[in-house]
């Protein structure tokens, strides 16, 4: 899923300062799972913004709404009837959701309340970890299902750097060395030979070659 974190309220306040009537829109998918942009977080942020406005003698009107998804037109469409009553939309979606809403409503200011962070996994309650960079050329098959692009701080394809000590990354002792994990897993599976091959330079054009990427599937189109 896509993870995100709420921006500092000071930054949000600065963005919404010119507006009085604000539509605060949550997203019930990924960002709800990581407790950043679901219905509950919409409630908390709206409450905080209202309290702040009252305390500083400002007038503000907030409508709270949470869509099942903010990145799919059918769900965004639920805003169509009410959006004209508001001066701005404060979106608690990931960057994709914010932009999807903006495309549907070209004249409305759509403001991001979250910082979108990474593709990751819910490791345990309250802990999310990054493990995919969406490079477009998955090599997990040769790296024992541990992604060196994401989980090695230097994104090394051909073995650990010289800083790995007692299975920790030199950059952050809280982070396990991805290459230690790869070597251990391959060793356990008796496949250490996979590492004898020199992996040639990666094809980053699959990640960022010609600007934003797209996927077209004719069979899925109407």
């Amino acid at each position, binding site marked *: 899923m896509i993870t995100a974190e709420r921006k500092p309220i000071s930054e949000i306040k600065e963005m919404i300062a010119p507006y009085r009537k604000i539509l605060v829109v949550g997203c019930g998918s990924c960002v709800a799972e990581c407790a950043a942009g679901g219905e509950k977080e919409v409630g908390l942020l709206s409450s905080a913004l209202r309290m702040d406005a009252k305390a500083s003698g400002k007038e503000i009107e907030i409508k709270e709404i949470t869509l099942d998804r903010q990145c799919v037109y059918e769900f965004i469409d639920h805003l169509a009837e009410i959006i004209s009553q508001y001066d701005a939309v404060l979106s608690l979606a990931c960057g994709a959701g914010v932009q999807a809403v903006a495309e549907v409503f070209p004249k409305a200011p759509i403001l991001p309340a979250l910082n979108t962070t990474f593709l990751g996994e819910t490791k345990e309650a309250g802990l999310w970890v990054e493990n995919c960079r969406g490079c477009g050329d998955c090599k997990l098959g040769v790296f024992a299902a541990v992604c060196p692009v994401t989980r090695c701080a230097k994104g090394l*394809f*051909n073995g650990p750097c010289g800083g790995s000590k007692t299975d920790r990354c030199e950059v952050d002792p809280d982070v396990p060395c991805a290459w230690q994990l790869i070597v251990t897993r391959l060793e356990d599976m008796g496949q250490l030979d996979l590492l004898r091959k020199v*992996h040639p330079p990666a094809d980053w054009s699959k990640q960022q070659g010609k600007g934003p990427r797209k996927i077209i599937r004719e069979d899925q189109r109407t």
Partner: protein
Amino acid sequence: MITESRLKNVLDSGNFAVTAECGPPKGADPEVVKSKGTILKGHVDSVNVTDNQTGVVRLNSLAACALLRAEGLDPVLQMVTRDRNRIALQSDVLGASALGIRNILCLSGDHQSFGNQPQAKGVFDIDSVQLIQTVRQMRDAGEIIGGEKLASPPELFIGAVANPFADPFKYRAARLATKVDAGAEFIQTQCIFNLKRFKEWMGLVRDNRTADQVYILGGITPLKSARMAEYMAKNVAGMDLPKDVINRMKAAPAKEQRQEGIRIAVETIHALREIKGVHGVHIMAIEWEDAVPQIVEEAKLFPRPQA
């Protein structure tokens, strides 16, 4: 004009090679580089110039190499993949060769978060092994990545680094083999303080036949003080500085600690000369280049052979 790598010639003729490290200044004054070169000239075969080491902005490695080259030294251009993508790296390889630089050391580089630009974007378009392979292919096949032909290939003696003290230890010898497969011709190691572990690693490197295919230069760093030893043991990534070395430094009176550091360095060099498969030493006297001539002389590696 030197047109060949002095380092390569010294090694090929069977001599025990001596290289040293020169860190460029945090400034634009060429005299700093030249004066470091003057100290080292004659006492070492070649001089490595670090590439924004530990992610700290310093005078460009390629420029410093060119300055040393003009002073008649044989520079080793250190090149990290942290700061430049494959376009810039390959372009710099060609530029280095054009400036008469004949040695290159390929590294991934310390992570940018350690340096004075922690908010920088780490490039890591390719890794150190891929850089070795790229330079080798440029030189031997006259081809850049993707197969396009060069009008004229670069002339470079290709090196890589190895850290026998990092983990996973058992995999470290295989990793060296990968670098040699990729095209590395000489290896400079992390500073050696733990001789026991280094010997163990050399055993593995001889066992997998890598030692026969590459020149290995053992890393030497003279300790300036007990405090420096403790600092390095604690704070430098990938460093293995055993307690007995630290204790030996501590046992020396403050005034004599520098001399003790040099003594340890010289003893380590003597020990390395006895290890099969070790072809030289690489002296990294951090901001203490003056120590190098003394170490080389006391290790009885002076005068250097003609090459």
